[in-house]
């Protein structure tokens, strides 16, 4: 204390002016928020019609009020004597408040809402009075799922994605080992190899749609070297004559999924590669030297000395690959839209198609599919959390 005259208990006293000003501002904000949200009077008052153009300013105004309210609440709480006496207990909740509420509202609560939707039949609409128009149907949607051949196709494709996507892990390791050298310019090579991951999946999808195009795609060009000749036809134009026609990968029911998975592997391998490259950076050189003295070489060295040290990298590579496989949506949407005849559907895309695709929305049925996908993912999430929990216990 710089001023000895101040009584030490004053440190813990409520600062009255600060609290009352903050309280007044908070009250005004709360009133404003309730008023604006519950009625559209403000909009009519200022002559703003309920058009799309009016939405953004209205939203920004609400956000402004909300943020002011939060700041006022912060000053109010930190001015209270209770806070000053229990700083270490109260402070974490103040730090958490906004982020946690935000996350709960947009992520955690919707999970349960979706699950509850799955027991209803609903098209996503409300009647004029704002009353929900759906009806409770119990397990009906799940019973429908069991008889839906498209659901089984999607499930089977999801499994295919999971299994084949795993190839990204060893492939990434292989490229990482190939690039883990110190020759000049290797840094540029590393970043260029990583390139596909930075590009949006939509663009990757378009690139591969083009690559697979049976008329002029890259693949048909390579196919042409083996099976096609360019000849002059009767009219005198150059035409391509093939002994075996190039396959139309995305147009073929048996091949479409494999084609999309191959496209998806491209960025995923790049991701796994970068994980392993960072991992290899941290492999202890002492152990490798020791291994060399013991006569370990090549595969043996890799398997017994290097891979055990790469465990954290492998773990993350597997986690992100599983999640990537189950989240596959963008590529299917850009490359085949689930076709031909639903043969390349996965649960993620099928759900979207059923819920908001063309025609009427089937919110209930879509939610049932989403719930199935969620529980599949939950297996991996639980495993990931369990592993994290083990690490935390060791850490403390």
């Amino acid at each position, binding site marked *: 204390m710089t001023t000895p005259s101040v009584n030490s208990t004053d440190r813990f006293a409520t600062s009255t002016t600060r609290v009352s000003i903050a309280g007044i501002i908070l009250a005004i904000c709360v009133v404003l928020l309730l008023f604006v949200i519950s009625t559209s009077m403000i909009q009519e008052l200022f002559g703003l019609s309920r058009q799309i153009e009016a939405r953004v300013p209205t939203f920004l105004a609400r956000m402004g009020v909300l943020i002011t309210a939060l700041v006022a609440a912060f000053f109010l709480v930190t001015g209270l004597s209770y806070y000053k006496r229990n700083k270490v207990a109260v402070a974490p909740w103040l730090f958490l408040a906004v982020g946690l509420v935000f*996350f709960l509202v947009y992520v955690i609560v919707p999970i349960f809402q979706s699950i509850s939707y799955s027991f209803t039949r609903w098209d996503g609409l409300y009647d004029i009075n704002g009353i929900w128009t759906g009806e409770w149907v119990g397990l009906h949607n799940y019973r429908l799922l069991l008889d839906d051949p498209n659901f089984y196709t999607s499930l089977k494709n999801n499994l295919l994605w999971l299994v084949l996507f795993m190839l990204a892990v060893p492939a990434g390791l292989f490229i990482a080992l190939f690039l883990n050298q*110190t020759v000049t310019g290797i840094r540029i090579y590393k970043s260029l190899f990583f390139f596909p991951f*930075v590009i949006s999946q939509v663009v990757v999808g378009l690139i591969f749609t083009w690559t697979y195009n049976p008329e002029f795609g890259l693949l048909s060009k390579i196919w042409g070297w083996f099976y096609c000749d360019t000849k002059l036809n009767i009219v005198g134009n150059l035409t391509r004559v093939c002994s075996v026609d190039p396959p139309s990968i995305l147009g073929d029911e048996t091949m479409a999924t494999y084609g999309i998975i191959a496209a998806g592997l491209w960025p995923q391998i790049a991701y796994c590669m970068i994980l392993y490259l960072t991992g290899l950076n941290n*492999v202890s050189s002492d152990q490798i030297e020791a291994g060399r003295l013991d006569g370990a070489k090549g595969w043996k060295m890799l398997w017994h000395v290097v891979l055990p040290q790469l465990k954290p990298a492998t773990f993350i590579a597997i986690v992100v690959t599983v999640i990537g496989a189950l989240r596959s949506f963008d590529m299917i949407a850009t490359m085949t839209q689930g076709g031909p005849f639903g043969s390349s559907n996965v649960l993620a895309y099928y759900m979207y198609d059923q819920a908001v695709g063309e025609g009427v929305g089937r919110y209930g049925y879509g939610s049932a599919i989403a719930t199935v996908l969620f529980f599949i993912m939950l297996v991996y999430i639980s495993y990931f959390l369990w592993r994290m929990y083990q690490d935390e216990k060791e850490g403390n």
Partner: protein
Amino acid sequence: MFPNPVEKRSSGTRLAYKLSLPIALFLWLLPLLAIFMTSIRPASDIAIGNVFGLPSSFQLLQNYGEVFAKTDALKYLANTLLIAIPTMIMSVALACLTGYALAIYRFKWALPLFFLFVAGNFVPFQILMLPVVDMSNRLEIINTVPGLVMFHAAFQTGFCTLFMRNFMKALPFELIESARLEGVDEFKIFWYLVLPLVKPAIAALCVLIFTFIWNDFFWATVLIQDSASLPITVGVRTLNGEFVQQWHLVSAASLLAAVPPVLMFFAMQKHFIAGLTLGATKG
């Protein structure tokens, strides 16, 4: 170092390695090169089947110019920036706060809440889709840029919290302890002591979130139908429908959509990679 450095091998191996590098890279990026070559040639080339040879004339500027002139590509790019930058700021700022609470304070909810953020971050998007659409509808922010930003910011807070909390956990705790004993207020410790120390984490997160949001497709399709607010990823797919058979324009538009994240990556490579490894491997 593993595998054995090529410098220690025979000169033949070294040469073979140095030769194999560009070849491997060429094969790896072949699809990308092919689409680039397509984007700089005239439409007539594609019609006669000259897809991978030298273009009959180089039309780099014409093709890319045409994409801007004929379509709303510029508006789509602007929309993407309007979505990505506020999202980045909001989620990183919130995660600094939540990460600090979960890393520094030892209260019994710290670990369960941290796991809640981590778990939420990994759920499939489809389970969130319909309630989020419904909520945005009722808040009247569906079809708007702020509506999309709100969701993205909330969702990305999960990932940012995971990263930030782990980063802050590695800070020397004694530093904070001694500041507390000095009587420094909790918020001053956060602002003056901890924030400067986590600058690298903030940089890494900003780069990553920007790229994630730039590349987002699913949420933009779900939450925005109005073409005035569409971001570039959805825009490119719409263009794909408009430019049927005009592959030189489709490929030019696709590559345009990929440029900003690529520039970001090359400019901030170190931070980018640190972020991607989820802070698990320090390097």
